[in-house]
């Protein structure tokens, strides 16, 4: 191998050789390519040798780490390759290359090996895609995040609230708040850290070892979400139901975006709330309306996200209504006339008058009533005709109902029977007496 100093325009040729520490036989690499090694000099150990920048220290320590002795890099060629790469990194003023013989011609030897070391260094420096990012999750839900850089498996954590497996990070259920989680990478190949040795009168060295722990953080924000449904009557636009209908008891079913049922929400006190619904898209459908209401056949799309963590929906229900048409007639002998100006009081089940209707010229009066039970009470009548008995009406469907009220005035034959004497019986008695 040779090195050419552009400053002095001098080429140095050198056979690769091991630097080993006396006593321990541990090997080291030269980090001053144009200084000579003086075996008699003493060295001081340091993490920051004065001839290198921090960038160089970082690169050289990684070349040494992934070079000779790393996993299957046991052939001594790896030492020469590692040394060559360390020189290239430590002093850019020179040109470094392998030669075919000592003082021979430059050759492109060991390029694959150098590429492998470079790849290992580059991979080592790659952080997971989740590093230094902030994730928002919902209270009481866990999340799983996959590392797009596919290096997460090289990291570990000491925090039992998170777990790393199969290149995925699982964050367990947490309460509302902000959390910082640390993951780190630390390879223990050499059972010792790398260290530099420097001397004023001899070339500085590096002894290979484990790299510094590579740490990164993941920030997690845990928030609460809620989905709130408020139930109102469509007509009153309030929680006051019409008629005898009841808003409470309506059931909505929540589905995920694949139409899988999640749960039923039952309206109570005009409300239903789901706390901490996880982020995602949902669909909501009413499956059972409140008593006396028609089914709300809308499908509501709900997106729960960090920006839309609180969803409040006002759900309307239309009360069941029935149109009641009263046709009032009166007459004799099947000949009927339309009976106009006949009033009917309409009472609810508590006997309270809720409305009054009056027949028109055609003897017709109509009203639309909401769900409930009612009585139609005739208040007046045409002279000579009786009033109809109160009519009970139940509104529990939407089919129009016609009530035909005919007052018959029927001529009846005289059904009076005189108390007749049984004359023959009387005569018989008289004859006997005689």
């Amino acid at each position, binding site marked *: 191998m040779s090195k050419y100093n552009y400053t002095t325009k001098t080429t140095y040729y050198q056979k690769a050789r091991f630097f080993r520490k006396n006593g321990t036989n541990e090997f080291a690499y030269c980090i001053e390519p144009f200084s000579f090694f003086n075996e008699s000099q003493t060295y001081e150990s340091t993490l920051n040798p004065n001839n290198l920048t921090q960038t160089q220290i970082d690169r050289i320590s990684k070349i040494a780490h992934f070079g000779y002795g790393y996993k299957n890099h046991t052939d001594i060629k790896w030492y020469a390759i590692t040394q060559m790469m360390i020189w290239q990194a430590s002093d850019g003023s020179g040109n470094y290359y392998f030669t075919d013989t000592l003082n021979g011609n430059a050759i492109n030897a060991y390029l694959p090996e150098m590429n492998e070391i470079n790849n290992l260094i580059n991979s080592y420096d790659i952080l997971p895609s989740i590093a230094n990012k902030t994730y928002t999750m919902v209270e009481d839900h866990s999340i799983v995040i996959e590392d797009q850089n596919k290096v997460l498996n090289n990291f570990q954590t000491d925090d039992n609230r998170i777990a790393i497996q199969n290149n995925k990070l699982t964050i367990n259920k947490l309460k509302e708040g902000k959390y910082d989680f640390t993951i780190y990478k630390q390879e223990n190949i050499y059972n010792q850290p790398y260290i530099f040795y420097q001397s004023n009168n001899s070339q500085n060295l590096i002894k290979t070892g484990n790299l510094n722990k590579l740490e990164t953080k993941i920030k997690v924000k845990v928030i609460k979400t809620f989905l709130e449904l408020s139930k109102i009557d469509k007509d009153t636009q309030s929680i006051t139901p019409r008629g005898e209908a009841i808003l409470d008891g309506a059931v909505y079913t929540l589905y995920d975006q694949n139409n899988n049922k999640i749960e039923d929400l039952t309206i109570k006190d005009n409300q239903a709330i789901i706390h901490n619904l996880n982020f995602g898209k949902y669909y909501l459908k009413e499956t059972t309306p409140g008593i006396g209401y028609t089914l709300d056949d809308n499908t509501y799309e709900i997106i729960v996200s960090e920006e839309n963590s609180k969803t409040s929906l006002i759900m309307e229900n239309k009360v069941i209504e029935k149109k009641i048409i009263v046709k009032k007639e009166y007459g*004799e*002998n*099947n000949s009927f006339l339309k009976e106009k100006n006949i009033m009917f009081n309409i009472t609810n089940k508590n006997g309270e008058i809720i409305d009054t209707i009056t027949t028109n010229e055609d003897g017709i009066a109509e009203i639309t009533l909401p769900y409930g039970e009612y009585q139609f009470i005739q208040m007046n009548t045409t002279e*000579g*005709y*009786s*009033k*109809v*008995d109160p009519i009970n009406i139940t509104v529990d469907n939407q089919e129009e109902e*016609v*009530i*035909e*009220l*005919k*007052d*018959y*005035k*029927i*001529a*009846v*034959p*005289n*059904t*009076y*029977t*005189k*108390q*007749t*004497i*049984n*004359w*023959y019986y009387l*005569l018989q008695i*008289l*004859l006997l007496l*005689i």
Partner: protein
Amino acid sequence: MIKKYYIIILLCIVCIMIPRTEEYTKIIPNITIINKTTSTKIGRINIKKIKLKEDLYKIGSEENNVEKHVTILKESIFPPTENSIVFLAAHSGSGKIAYFQELDKLQEKDEIILTLNNKNYYYEVKDIWEEKKNGYINVNKESKDQLVLTTCSPTKEQYQLVINCIKKES
């Protein structure tokens, strides 16, 4: 003795001159027009509670007469026509034609079976009331099949008893 015969003869004359009672007038025509009743009979009313089982005759027939039978009033609309209403009238009081003599014993929910054209219709009493007599009764037509029975009030003079019945759900 002669005086006694005079009295007997006098009583016989009186008997002959006395107008026939309703009971009597009923019996004769019934016997004489048996064939006719067979042809005009259209049904029967059966009220178990008062042990009444009487045939009914076509409106317009001679037998459909309150002096002979339970009478169907001409305003009647027969089932199975929807919202039918059948009016039946008969004498109360005493005598054989007093078919509705015990009509006032009926109460709400009591059952009346009306047979028309060999089909039975089951009614139950809904309302009972009495109206001042004026030759008419007032009946409200309901959106149901009705049967209205009427006779003179057995308890209140110059009042008409009216019983409104509703056909039972089949």
